């Protein structure tokens, strides 16, 4: 049997890789992929809890998180397309028009 500690550690490692990617990369698409990775890590934690508590509720929450991720991707990528159309760049350091 896989212990809960190992699962949570894997989840934490994936989450932290997502954070690292989000902070260090400046390509907006890869930053967005890192967000997806973090959502996946959270899902993994939820599903481990579902298995170890013997109730299905956490799996349902993970299912809702997946639906939410799909909706988020649809809108987020539309925003990226619009930004690229106006500014011709995907580097977030160049998207500083609101910076004072």
């Amino acid at each position, binding site marked *: 049997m896989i212990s*809960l500690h190992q699962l949570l550690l894997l989840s934490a490692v*994936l989450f932290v890789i997502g954070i690292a990617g989000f902070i260090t990369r*400046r390509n907006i698409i890869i930053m*967005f992929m890192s967000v997806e990775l973090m959502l996946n890590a959270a899902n993994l934690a939820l*599903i481990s809890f579902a*298995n170890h508590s013997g109730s299905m509720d956490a799996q349902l929450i993970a*299912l809702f998180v997946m639906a939410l991720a799909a909706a988020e991707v649809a809108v987020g990528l539309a925003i990226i397309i619009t930004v690229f159309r106006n500014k011709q760049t995907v580097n977030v350091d160049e998207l500083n028009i609101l910076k004072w």
Partner: protein
Amino acid sequence: MAEQILFYLFAVIAIISALSAVTRKNPVVSAVWLVSCMCSLAVIYVLLEAYFLAAVQVIVYAGAVLMLFVFVIMLLNLRTGIIGQFRNLGLKFMGLVLTVIILRQFYTAFKGTSLILGNAGGLEPGFGEARAVGELLFTRYVYPLELISILLLVAIVGALVLAGKESS
């Protein structure tokens, strides 16, 4: 025992794929590594007896979300010329330090608590299958389900308003 071996194998694959995904220069390569990461996570979901969610993971994440990412990368025609070199060593160093700190916090948090939630292995039959998911989804979670449908409606409208207008 076999479960342990499979878990370690696919956990290592997932971590390596995730690391590669956030470090590649080309976004398309990054997306393909992310597909590998999500498929290995689906294997771990199967090991955790979340069969329906494993299928959803492959269909939605690997099939739809990453497809949309690759699609947009091709739509924007992102080549290395446009992407360029984003060199910022100070930022990278700061990110690395922050990462190590957060990971250490997680580790301390897990180590300090005794997470014994009981029945590991003694799950009722049908756990995690589509039938059990449906029985919960359409009774106790029917209100969140309708909220999800409204969220998807908003996503359709928002994406159409943002990207739907014809470009020159």
